[in-house]
């Protein structure tokens, strides 16, 4: 029981990072049918901002907002320079464009900084623990969960109450109809990229304060997990992305503690088989998202 609860908190802590990223991935899929594999590069830019500012001894109180800002700026820049031009292109072109951007980002960091990791000291709070009854809980896990929940609630309110949220929902339902109703395509899409960037920046801050280093290819792995989470939840469904992200985080921790050693390496393989099966059996994910082509 003891480890069960501890694992759960641990898993939810990791999972909230995935979920924050997954919500962004899912939102972008909703508005432009793009699975954005370049989304993970927003973590990378945040990491280098943290490294850069911390190596000049800038306070964490300034560093963290700057890191989030960096992610938002990059997200909007990517949309403006690349995705805007291929907005109406096939899934094929969109997907390859996002991969090209990912590799471009890796190369730029390698050339601009170094292919070797750059380390920065993590703040004390990142690894503090406290005892809650019989459980030893990491403070950062609790902060992660609280921040993520606030973000999800904020996102839900934004989608329901604001005009921007309404246009995002309308665009996800039927982009052409939304445009006929006066939704400006470029504005809603760059807005979605900015919002997804904000969530990615926050996810980045939660993840990076414990990670302690920046390296060119670091964005790929968390993003892959976020994509998996978004797929499990059903691409385009934000609720699904949250559930998918948290479930993945928890599942990972349990796999790690219960699977025998020689099967550990295969956990990812299991997940991939599961994903492939999901695409065959239930391409709309666990949560239903309807899309239909008009003939």
């Amino acid at each position: 029981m003891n480890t069960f609860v501890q694992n759960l908190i641990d898993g939810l802590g990791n999972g909230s990072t995935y979920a924050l990223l997954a919500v962004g991935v899912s939102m972008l899929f909703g508005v432009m049918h793009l699975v954005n594999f370049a989304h993970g590069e927003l973590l990378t830019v945040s990491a280098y901002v943290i490294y850069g500012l911390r190596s000049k001894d800038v306070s964490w109180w300034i560093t963290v907002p700057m890191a989030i800002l960096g992610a938002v700026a990059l997200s909007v820049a990517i949309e403006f320079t690349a995705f805007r031009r291929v907005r109406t292109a096939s899934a094929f072109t969109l997907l390859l464009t996002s991969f090209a951007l990912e590799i471009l980002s890796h190369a730029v960091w390698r050339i601009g900084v170094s292919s070797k990791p750059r380390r920065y000291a993590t703040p004390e709070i990142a690894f503090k623990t406290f005892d809650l009854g019989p459980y030893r809980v990491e403070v950062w896990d609790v902060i992660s969960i609280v921040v993520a929940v606030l973000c999800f609630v904020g996102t839900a309110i934004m989608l329901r109450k604001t005009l921007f949220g309404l246009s995002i929902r309308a665009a996800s339902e039927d982009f052409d109809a939304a445009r006929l109703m006066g939704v400006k395509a470029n504005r809603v899409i760059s807005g979605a990229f900015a919002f997804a960037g904000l969530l990615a920046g926050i996810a980045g801050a939660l993840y990076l304060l414990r990670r302690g280093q920046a390296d060119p290819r670091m964005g790929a792995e968390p993003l892959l997990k976020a994509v998996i989470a978004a797929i499990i939840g059903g691409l385009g469904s934000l609720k699904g992305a949250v559930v998918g992200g948290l479930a993945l985080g928890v599942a990972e921790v349990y796999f790690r503690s219960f699977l025998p050693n020689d099967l550990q390496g295969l956990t990812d393989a299991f997940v991939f088989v599961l994903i492939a099966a999901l695409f065959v059996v239930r391409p709309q994910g666990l949560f239903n998202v309807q899309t239909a082509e008009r003939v």
Partner: protein
Amino acid sequence: MISDRRRVALGSLGGNLVLVALVVVGGVVYAAFGSSARDALITDLLINLVIVIGFQIFIGNTGVLSFGHLGIASLAAYVMALLAIPAARKSVLIPNAPWGIPDIEVDPLLATVIGIGVAVVVSALLAAVVARTSGLSATMITLAFLFVVRQVAENWKDLTNGAGNLSSVPRLDGNGWAIVGAVLAVFVAVSFRASKVGRLAVATREDELAAGAMGIDVFSPRFIAFVVSGAVVAVGGILRVQSLGSLGPSQFSFDFTILILAMLVVGGMRTVSGAIVGTAFITIGKEITRFLGDGPHFLGFEWPVVDGLPDLFLAGSLLVVLLLRPSGLLGEYDVGTFVAAQLSRSGRRSSGPAASAIASAIAPDHSDAVLRTNCLGVTFGGFTAVDSVTMSVEPGRIHGLIGPNGAGKTTLINVLTGVVEPTYGTVEIGGRELTGPPHSRARQGISRTFQNLRVFGALSVRENVAVADLVARQHRVDRAGPGVDALLELSGLTAMADRPASTLDYGNQRRLEIARAAALRPDFLLLDEPTSGMSEAESREMVDHVRRIATAVGAGVLVIDHDLGFITSICEHITVLDQGAVLAEGTPDEVQSDPRVIEAYLGTQGA
């Protein structure tokens, strides 16, 4: 006399082999002025060429993005290596391998053949899943496959030695085998594109929905393309391992896949020439950037060492092409087209079919099947789109279906053609119930055009019609048809037969769609708003055109429109739909004088 198609195929084969030869000669010259590392570069280039062309066979012809082919290559290479590595080495490298593998030692050539065989089987299994899906799903499944293969290879250490690699794979020396592989790959790719399956695959790439409506089952061309392409990529993978002499899990990685895809996309995935040009372009660019990044002494400067320059070039060129020229440097261009044009200039045949050939092709007996709907209904959620419609379309007759916007006309056509499942009721043709997906209905005698044009844009005008004719020859054998040339002549398209369909103007694309639908030798031709967007004069011309085509194929016609004038001038019988239900029925005169119709069209005040 050789046919046009064969001329193009031969031209393409010859032209592309010349292209490969040029690349090889360029490489040899470059290698002659440098170290032995440059020899390895040519081998690498040729083997990459095999793999890129292998990818082109599937991706280029079907338009479905696959990340999984190097997973297939990896499996094939492992099978080959595990069989061919000398037993003495295996007992050191992988003493605990299952199935007595440490004791087996197979001749490398036989091991290669077995490896390719395994690749074919694995490709078929994977294709059985992938070919059922399209777009994003197919891509994600193949991506998952690539990762799974790698993870298993990394973790099944007893069998693969994990990251420790399998060394002592019997090596092939020199470039001979790589050249053979490249020539073979070009041959397979050109033959595939020219084959029947290849043309059907391209049709599904151009428009999946229209391909289904023409009786093409999307599954089988995709399946075959995937397996052929898997085998060619496996050949490339095995050659690569044999030229290196060792094999590890990271060799057929995601990064390598991106390299191959970049070569294909940058050059132009739609043609074999594109694959060759792209491979050469990326290889040369990477070689130059690698040179620049190594801190050369060059132009009197001591250049700094820059790590990652080749990757920057790779991602940059891929991105630039995707954003500015998504069809790649060559687009639709294949050297074969050029060579074929040269060939045909020397041996030009008489032009077009003789008028008598057309005359004799026209007017086969029309079929005597009746198309009938029995109390057909469709509801979407709570909305009733089609409400208990019972109607009959007589053979050889032109029947109009008319009604205001939202009356359910297009939904009714979608039900007849199998795009939408009815909520209740049945459709019959000649007394047999009509069921199944769109392609099987097309084979049972229903063909259609679309409200929003759906021609196969990248195919030539002739190929558009020929693809439907191909299906008819296989599935409509009991019906006679006028043939491709006669249909083109009847549609006034002969002069532009060799142009890509996408370059035609609106009216000609409409006529092409009708010609294509007619080539299927249907019992019934369903025309969804054939005059939408046309001027009055063009509409009048369309009346004659539809009559001519319908007589030529002996098909009954069901034509939808909301233009009352057009419908009454062409149809012998009219059904009026309103809010999903049949409002009136009869001859044009009867329908026009029906007060309910007048009300629905003009409102009560106007009546």
